[in-house]
């Protein structure tokens, strides 16, 4: 618990996620083929690749919503291959979804409070008896939730229904929801989709601050500027196969990566 924040900026944290030989086959299509990758505590790793490269399929397997056809997923030293989503969630893997996904008819504050399920213990029974532990937990939960809303620039929207937020606010609320579970590993699926450059810049700032909180981040993203400015390391998928891995500066100049993104030969500009 104490170690995570100390390792936050270190590149050499312990291995938190280790994926080996991960494969997913849909009928005759191999969406992800034999992918190996690791993520270390405190890193921000970007997962990039053209449309249909298998990024979301890989994400779905890591989040537990889709069992792999073969291969293994180890999270924090435990084999999690094929564990259902709520088990991955309980163990500390939170995710956001490509299409906006929140609790639409709850208030912003209740969105975050509902999302903090994993961090609380006193439930219905304690609420009926109004035990001291329950009241303490609820007060603490509200304080934490408001802090998190402030962190995501949503504090003045606490009583608004999630449905009534603007698009940019909804995307920030999604991150607040994922963080409310106090994850060890945060999977962000195209968080910048549909954002303008200014909102994108805000997102970069936010991801940096998430890392400072001691949360490891794995990010699927199409906006190269965002990926390049926030990630320590990139993993590139093409047709379900890992074709490159390394620091952004190196990977984004890799001729093979340029070829899959731009098509055919690298262009001398």
């Amino acid at each position, binding site marked *: 618990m104490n170690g995570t924040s100390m390792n936050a900026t270190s590149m050499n944290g312990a291995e938190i996620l280790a994926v080996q030989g991960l494969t997913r086959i849909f009928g005759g299509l191999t969406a992800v083929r034999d992918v190996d990758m690791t993520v270390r505590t405190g890193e921000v790793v970007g997962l990039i690749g053209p449309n249909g490269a298998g990024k979301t399929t890989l994400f779905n397997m890591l*989040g537990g*919503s889709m069992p792999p056809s073969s291969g293994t997923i180890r999270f924090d030293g435990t084999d999690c291959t094929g564990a*259902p*989503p*709520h088990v*991955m*969630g*309980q163990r500390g893997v*939170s*995710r956001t*979804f490509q299409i906006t*996904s*929140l*609790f*639409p*008819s*709850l*208030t912003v504050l*209740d969105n975050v*409070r*509902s*999302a903090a*399920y*994993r961090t*609380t*213990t*006193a*439930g*219905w029974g*304690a*609420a*009926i008896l*109004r035990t001291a532990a*329950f009241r303490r937990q*609820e007060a603490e939960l509200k304080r934490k939730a408001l802090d998190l809303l402030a962190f995501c620039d949503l504090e003045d*929207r*606490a*009583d*608004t*229904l999630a449905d*009534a937020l603007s698009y940019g606010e909804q995307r920030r609320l999604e991150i607040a*929801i*994922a963080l*409310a*579970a106090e994850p060890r590993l945060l999977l962000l699926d195209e968080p910048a989709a549909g954002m303008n450059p200014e909102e994108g810049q805000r997102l970069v700032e936010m991801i940096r601050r998430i890392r400072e909180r001691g949360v490891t981040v794995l990010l699927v993203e199409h906006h190269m500027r965002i990926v390049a400015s926030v990630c320590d390391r990139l993993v590139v998928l093409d047709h379900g196969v890992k074709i490159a891995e390394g620091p952004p500066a190196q990977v984004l100049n890799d001729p093979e990566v340029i070829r899959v993104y731009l098509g055919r030969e690298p262009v001398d500009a």
Partner: protein
Amino acid sequence: MGHTVGMAGGVAALCVLPFLAGNAYLEHLLALWMLYALLALSLNIVIGYLGELTFGHAAFVGVGAYTSALLSTQLGLPPLLGLPLAAVAAALFGLVIGYAALRVVGPQFTILTLGFGSILYTITNNWVDLTRGPMGISDIPPMAIGPMTFTSARETYFLILALVLAVGFLCHALVNSRTGRAFLAVRENAPLAASLGINVFHTKLLGFVVATAIAGLGGAIYAHYIKVITPDIMGVQNVAALIIVVIIGGRGTIVGPILGALVYIGLLEALRVAGPLRMVIFAALLTGTVVFLPGGLVSLWQRWRTTHKADNNLPAGNGVPSAEGGAE
């Protein structure tokens, strides 16, 4: 604060009401109102908080009614003991049926509950050795707690009122706790809820079993009050009535089902003057409510409060709570 005062006023009004009724028939209607309120509150846990529509709820009311009725008429068990056993029996049926049916969601779940409900109805109707079939069970003794017996409508009204208040409190505690927030999260967005560590299936099963236990309790009280029960208690009319009560009042709230039950009982009586047109007018009113007030009657109050707030104060946040208004 205003919330607490309103609550206290409402409870006081409910306590005084039977003394103003003046005749036994009105008191009987009041008792029926409370019974429907109790059953609707239990159904609301599934429809309002979990967001799943069940067509099987009346079957669990029937299981509770038959359990307590048979225990008291066949084995001579005091009704006070039959009451918790009725809740347990209904909850056991709820556990088994919920375990099977909650694997699917949406319309498939609804159809499955309809099927299970019909099975229970058919068994009750045909197992003549046990249930006396369509003839039903009669001469059921009245509820008694020690020297207190609940034979009159007024006495029964107070008995059920106490249960309604208790269940209302349970629901209030639920939605303001971790457990209830998990219910709402599952209703709003099950995949997201799962990704946050909430076991969607277990959460739904818990809500379903609690709802069926309360339904069984309500059924038992009904049996000891009316003294005669037939398999019709499990029929489709009862299923429809309870769903209507929850939706008209306002699903996902505590006041809603209680208010909906009042409108249902009151309107059916008031429309008696219309003779055979009664059910037609009733159906039209219901349809109108669903079309123009999808949030139920309580949404009128929420709508009024929102505009009222907007007139008086600075633009306040959207003040429509989807769960029970959060009193801190």
